[in-house]
């Protein structure tokens, strides 16, 4: 049984971190979805330089640890004269990093729509954008939902990277509470509970959406 007096005594500290983690998650979630979709479109585009740029972006960012991506923004950007806070650097890093996985999930979804669909749409006079918008993407969405929700849940948990660059998130304050109380295990149990408060509803929503889309065919 964890020591609930820690939770009660440091509740304000936990809450500050919790709220910042929610902010960071929401911003990075929207940001990475937009950026990821854009990159996915780049990657399947018929224009070679776009395809090339998309591939380079995905392969470069996705294959280095998130922590290092975030370090680049926090420790590296200032040498270019841009100094952003730990919260901002962490959220940007998270967005840039998660976008690669989202791009890959969306690309896989689009690729799974049979080529005949695209050909049929285009031969009936639809432009590339229209084909995407009305024919391919609605079908791809259904396939993409499960891997996307995985990425979003990962994203929420990955916000913990803010803790190492003084990003004032849940993990940052968790570390502080742990070092003050010396009750490391108990402190992090409560940190875990706060993460669950965010991720469980997200999991549930994903499941719900999946079922609804399956019903609508």
């Amino acid at each position, binding site marked *: 049984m964890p020591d609930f007096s820690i939770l009660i005594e440091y509740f304000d500290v936990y809450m500050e971190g919790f709220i910042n983690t929610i902010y960071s998650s929401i911003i990075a979630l929207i940001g990475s979805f937009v950026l990821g979709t854009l990159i996915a479109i780049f990657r399947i585009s018929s224009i070679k330089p776009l395809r090339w740029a998309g591939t380079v972006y995905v392969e470069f960012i996705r294959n280095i640890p998130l922590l290092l991506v975030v370090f680049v923004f926090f*420790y590296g950007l200032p040498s270019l004269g841009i*100094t952003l806070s730990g919260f901002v650097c962490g959220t940007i890093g998270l967005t840039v990093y998660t976008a690669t996985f989202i791009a890959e999930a969306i690309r896989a979804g689009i690729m799974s729509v049979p080529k005949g669909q695209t050909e049929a749409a285009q031969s009936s006079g639809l432009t590339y954008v229209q084909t995407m918008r009305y024919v391919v993407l609605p079908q791809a969405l259904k396939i993409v939902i499960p891997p996307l929700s995985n990425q979003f849940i990962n994203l929420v948990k990955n916000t913990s990277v803010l803790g190492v660059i*003084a990003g004032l998130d849940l993990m940052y304050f968790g570390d502080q509470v742990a070092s003050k109380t010396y009750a490391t295990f108990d402190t992090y149990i409560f940190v875990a509970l706060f993460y669950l408060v965010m991720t469980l509803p997200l999991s549930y929503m994903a499941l719900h959406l999946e079922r609804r889309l399956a019903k609508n065919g």
Partner: protein
Amino acid sequence: MLKKWMTASLMMIVMSVFILAGCGGGSKNTAESNSGAGAGASEETAAPATLLDEIKTRDKLVIGVKFDTKLFGLKNPANNEVEGFDVDIAKALSKAILGDETKVELKEVTSKTRIPMLNNNEIDLIIATMTITEERKEQVDFSDVYFKAGQSLLVKKGSAIKSIGDITKGTKVLAVKGSTSVDNIKEKAPDATVLEFDNYQDAFSALKAGQGDTLTTDNAILYGMMAQDPGYEVVGEPFTDEPYGIAIKKGETALVDAVNEALAAMKSSGEYAKIYEQWIGEAPTE
């Protein structure tokens, strides 16, 4: 098949080299510590009046220093010499007490081992970044203060922050998570925004990246950072009091007096200032 065998035998060779190297190092260490203990035991049977007499009879001063602490006592892997502020103080003491700075034997101590080693007669003195505290005074005697340690501030040269008084609302102070320095700075400068990092390297990198205005921790660590990057300097007097002293076995007042006399002589002759400047990078404040 042949290739597989060759790889396997190559790995065996590499592994045995490592094991042998490990054994070599290990046996050397035990030999050293054995001789140390043996020397201690034989001296006890001789039983001279005081430890100071004993040191003079044996004509060697055995001093416990840190081997892993930057600026104070660090083993240089290039030449196997232990170097630092504490080491030079040890040599200077040997010169003052025995007339020759080479008559000193340095033994590695850690914060955990130093008091037991002193009380087991394995070492005569501890000069190992040891803060004088009331609690420790019950176990050992201390010399006068030889280094005024305490929490201080590191800033980029030319910073507007010259002391803790210059920290105002909105000043970003960088520190390390879970250190007492965080509590101290929050108490002494409640308006400051304290940003905490996992370790000193990250905190210093953040300071260099301009993510904060100043970095706070023990000045001994800050001087080490200053030595690494001369673009940064320690400002103001330490705002917590953690004076380093030389520890001596309890009851050996003659040795305490001899050490204090030697320290005083070093300070008046300018030798202390020379050692201080060499390692700390600035003149001692007095």
